[in-house]
């Protein structure tokens, strides 16, 4: 392919010559160029305006308006002051693009930025714009951060879906505008159940619906024999009392930050196979209570289940609860639903501070058809360190628990451990202190946990670290009885759990792979602050230790 050398004269020889120096791309019909621009990230598409005059306004016909600038967003989420500076610029950028836009309709409109009630004027216009341009996919996220990652507090009241737009979409003209909607996602926007149901009734093509963080949603009926809906998410709605689901095509359901009083009634969802539940929980007892609430859901038809847990930081009160719940767990396990067809089980844990984890095997045992198990644990240190004002000494005593089961004795040493954390500056905080703390906790645990956890029928004769792990899980199942007959892959993401790995080695005869990915131990959003190679190395070493325990045919992949 020939290139134009700057300064040479361009001689057009033959039209057919594919090596000619014709500007073939600019000769493409505009409709094609608009398609091509639509495949670029939106900002890149807009920047092609400088190529030549032909390109100046081409980008304004692009049908996908995606104002989701991840690279910019992450620093903003970390630093609220920066957010204050960037917010007006973001708003004026969106306004400007909408002003320039020339296409008669758009396929996609996406906003992802922390905005609130005081930006209503602009957001109202954006929604009106998108709806009048007969948008197919409308996604508004006015918080920007992932759920489960505690957002920086910002005091402004939440934006509410505008009344006048609601009136408009009830009119015949508005109804014809929303009937091409296939995807609707309203995050951290106050919407009422009535509004959401209006969309459900009047958007015959709607396949994906997400409502997150609405404070006005109290009751929602997702009901209709002809609903096309395949994906439904209802998350983090504080006042939600009930959700009724009758959706013949629903395949995925997500409910994160489910409130304890929310009732979910799944009366008909024959195709529902993929469920994600999220709860702020500290024990299996809590998970179990949520399951109990969801008893109308047919657990035996599920193929994929993800449980997202946000584990709160340790306080004395919390520890007390934890101990209580640990005692209770053993009495109530039989109430877990049987997950007879479950193939994928994923546990996603965000641990905001020093947390000990419950005994996951209680849940795993209920899933005999499991193919893949994933445990993902990310720590969020920044939230704890940055949260002001500083907590009083007993609550401040936080350590990072590393794959440690709870020891009731942990709090013994807490007050002395936490002291080192107080003076860490916001931006340069390291986690070396926590690592030391973890070691202490593990030692404490090793000494004190045995009486509580001592399994039946296992002698204390075994020695070495892995030996003690085997002891711990020995009461779950004798090694000879294999419960998992089709489990092939076990994956640990974030932080490695030796105990659990040993459990699978002993109880899954078909196990082929154990994947350990410790590259990211802390919440990705905070990566730049808390990337710690030493921590990663430690996790990796613990995984390597496992190697000599591996039976034949099991591959250990450490990423």
């Amino acid at each position, binding site marked *: 392919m020939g290139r134009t050398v700057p300064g040479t004269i361009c001689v057009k020889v033959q039209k057919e010559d*594919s090596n000619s120096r014709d500007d073939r791309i600019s000769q493409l019909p505009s409709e*094609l160029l608009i398609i091509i*621009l639509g495949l670029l990230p939106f900002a890149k598409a807009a920047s092609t305006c400088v190529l030549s005059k032909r390109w100046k306004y081409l980008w304004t016909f692009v049908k996908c308006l995606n104002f989701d600038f991840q690279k910019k967003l992450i620093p903003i989420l970390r630093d609220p002051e920066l957010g204050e500076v960037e917010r007006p610029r973001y708003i*004026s950028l969106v306004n400007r693009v909408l002003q320039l836009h020339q296409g008669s309709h758009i396929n996609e409109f996406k906003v992802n930025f922390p905005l609130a009630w005081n930006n209503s004027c602009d957001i109202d216009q954006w929604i009106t714009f998108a709806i009048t341009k007969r948008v197919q996919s409308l996604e508004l996220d006015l918080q920007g951060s992932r759920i489960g990652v505690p957002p920086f507090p910002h005091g402004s009241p939440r934006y509410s879906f505008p009344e006048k737009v609601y009136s408009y979409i009830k009119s015949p003209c508005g109804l014809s505008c929303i009937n091409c909607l296939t995807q609707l996602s309203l995050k951290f926007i106050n919407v009422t159940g009535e509004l959401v149901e209006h969309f459900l009734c009047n958007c015959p093509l709607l396949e994906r619906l997400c409502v997150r963080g609405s404070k006005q949603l109290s009751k929602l009926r997702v009901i209709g024999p002809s609903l096309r809906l395949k994906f439904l998410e209802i998350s983090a709605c504080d006042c939600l009392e009930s959700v009724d689901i009758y959706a013949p095509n629903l395949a995925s359901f997500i409910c994160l930050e489910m409130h304890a009083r929310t009732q979910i009634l799944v009366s008909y969802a024959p195709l529902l196979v993929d469920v994600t539940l999220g709860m702020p929980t500290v024990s299996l007892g809590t998970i179990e209570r949520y399951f109990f609430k969801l008893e109308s859901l047919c657990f035996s038809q599920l193929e994929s289940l993800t449980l997202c847990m946000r584990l709160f930081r340790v306080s004395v009160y919390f520890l007390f609860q934890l101990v209580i719940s640990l005692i209770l767990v053993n009495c109530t396990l039989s109430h877990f639903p049987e997950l007879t067809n479950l193939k994928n089980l994923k546990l996603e844990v965000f641990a905001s501070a020093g947390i000990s984890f419950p005994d996951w095997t209680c849940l795993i045992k209920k899933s005999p058809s499991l193919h893949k198990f994933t445990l993902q644990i990310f720590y969020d240190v920044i939230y704890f360190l940055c949260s002001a004002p500083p907590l009083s000494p007993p609550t401040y005593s936080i350590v990072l628990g590393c794959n440690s089961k709870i020891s009731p004795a942990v709090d013994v040493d807490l007050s002395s451990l936490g002291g080192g954390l107080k003076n860490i500056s916001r931006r340069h905080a390291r986690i070396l202190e926590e690592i030391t703390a973890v070691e202490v906790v593990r030692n404490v645990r090793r000494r004190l946990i045995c009486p509580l956890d001592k399994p039946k029928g296992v002698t204390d004769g075994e020695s070495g670290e892995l030996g003690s792990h085997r002891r711990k899980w020995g009461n779950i199942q004798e090694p000879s009885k294999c419960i998992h007959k089709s489990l092939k892959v076990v994956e640990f993401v974030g932080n490695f759990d030796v105990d659990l790995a040993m459990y699978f080695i002993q109880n899954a005869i078909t196990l082929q792979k154990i994947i350990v990915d410790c590259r990211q131990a802390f919440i990705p959003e905070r990566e730049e602050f808390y990337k710690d190679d030493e921590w990663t190395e430690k996790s990796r070493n613990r995984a390597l230790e496992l190697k000599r325990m591996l039976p034949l045919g099991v591959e250990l992949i450490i990423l």
Partner: protein
Amino acid sequence: MASSIENNNEKLTLKSSDGEEFLVEKHVALQSTLLQNMLDSDCSSADVIPLPKIDARTLALVLGYCKKHADASSSKQGELNSFDSEFLKDMDMGALFNLVLAANFMEIKGLLDIAAQKIADTIKDKPHQEVREIFHVENDYTPEEEAAVREENRWAFEGFP
């Protein structure tokens, strides 16, 4: 691929802009919405269908794509995906533009998608001067005009202003 075999109901003949004739099975031709509409509107399949905008080299490529996709049906999506990524791999820009035009004209959505994606990928991570050089786009802005356009859309160059 040039046709000398007699046509039957299951086959039809396409004629490229440079006069070459291609005999294709009907189910392969149906990958093209344009041809599908022509067949539906009762154009006799025995006739030669002229495609005045598409040269023989491009048409051969297009039909190769259609044949693969028609024969594989939906069962082997993975295989088709790898075929698609190989298909455009070492193609020069001239051929790629011919292909994207042909796919657009013949309304072959899958082919249009991958060809447009390939062009977009070429633009994606490159500075504008390099894009101009690759595609021989002549910059007809004066330096002042270019600066003004750049200023107007500054957000697009910096994330946002």
